[in-house]
């Protein structure tokens, strides 16, 4: 195995939270691929001191968060002062209030990618204002799976079948991180890769080999939904990995089974 000599991605997540095991599975696969390229990543569970410690110690240029979000908050970790109402599917108009900025400066100089609901509405812009170099997230509730009534939910990373798809949504989102970590692309190129992956799956469900599956109509509609609300802000010409400082040691926090170069992930149980 190549020596991991720098941390370029920190991944913050909480695998026990609702649905996050599906995203965590993809990140673990990507971590393994990244290690082959001598790119290291750090996986941190949704525990603030661990996340802070990782950021302070390894100073990764990329922060990938997988958790619940709201317009002004990414779990309990990142918060932007904001108040307003948002229409939430299934719940109607919901008021959100965040009274003060919290931890935004910790993302200064980093590429922040949040696979979570709603953070693109206000938190993304606030992060850029606070010095984050670039941001990718969603400005509505993010769909990660669809299934036909009567079928059980698949295992994480299980490819889609006739009646269930808990794969294409996260696979499309993760494509951006794959590009940056494995191909050293710019953020803009990574965003274009995410868009292309969503469109690839939409085409497969609407014109291609999956078009006659019972799940096809819902899956393509949800893919279109996520794509419509994908939000990218900041410096799209930035190539995050080129600025990485080589460090003498790697620190693994929370989940030692997983390591990355340059990423930190966080998650919490806070809904939205």
């Amino acid at each position, binding site marked *: 195995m190549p020596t991991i000599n720098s941390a370029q991605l920190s991944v913050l997540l909480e695998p026990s939270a*609702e*649905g*996050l095991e599906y995203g965590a599975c993809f990140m673990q696969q990507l971590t393994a691929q990244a290690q082959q390229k001598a790119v290291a990543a750090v996986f941190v569970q949704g525990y603030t001191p661990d996340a802070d410690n990782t950021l302070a110690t390894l100073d990764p240029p990329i922060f990938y968060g997988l*958790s*619940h*979000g709201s317009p002004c908050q990414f779990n309990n970790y990142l918060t932007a002062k904001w108040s307003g109402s948002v*229409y*939430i*599917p*299934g*719940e*109607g108009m919901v008021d959100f209030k965040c009274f003060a900025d919290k931890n935004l400066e910790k993302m200064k100089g980093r590429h922040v990618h949040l*696979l*979570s*609901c*709603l953070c693109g509405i206000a938190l993304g812009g606030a992060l850029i204002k606070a010095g984050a170099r670039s941001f990718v997230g969603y400005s509505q*509730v*993010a*769909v*990660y*799976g*669809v*299934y*036909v*009534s009567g079928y059980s*939910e698949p295992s994480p990373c299980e490819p889609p079948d006739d009646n269930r798809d*808990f794969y294409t949504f996260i696979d499309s989102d993760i494509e951006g991180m794959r590009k940056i970590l494995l191909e050293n692309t710019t953020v803009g190129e990574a965003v274009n890769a995410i868009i292309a992956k969503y469109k690839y799956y939409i085409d497969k*469900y*609407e*014109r291609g080999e999956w*078009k*006659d599956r*019972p*799940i*096809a*109509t*819902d899956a*393509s*509609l*949800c893919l*279109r*939904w996520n794509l*419509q609300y994908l939000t990218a802000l900041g410096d799209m010409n930035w190539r995050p990995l080129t600025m990485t400082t080589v460090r003498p040691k790697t620190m693994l926090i929370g989940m030692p089974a997983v390591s990355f170069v340059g990423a930190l992930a966080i998650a919490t149980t806070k*809904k*939205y």
Partner: protein
Amino acid sequence: MLERVANWVNRLPAEARALPILEHAGRYWSPNEILAQIQSCPNCSLSQALQAMLEQRLHALSPYATQYEIAKTRLIIHFARTPGYWRTLAGTISTAQLAQEVANETPLGQQLIQLEMQRMREQLEMFY
């Protein structure tokens, strides 16, 4: 012409073939119904009008309100025919809930109808 319509219908997703896609003569037409009409009476004025709508992209000139209503109807039919669930990072939504959102044209319902309009137009464009 019949062959061209049949090819178009076959290229569409199975479920979409039975969902309304055009409005003509006071009613909605699904691709299957358009094909059946043209097969049963190729020279009827009704068949020729439907063909013309497809060939000359006349559907693109349909009023926005008509396209909106067709898309709304498609979603309500789909959610009733294929019950299921959407999982989001904010929780689970059933297609029964979604059908209500669409029927009541809530902000979510309107967003879904807009997406369906987009998809419907692309399915019509598959004729070419």
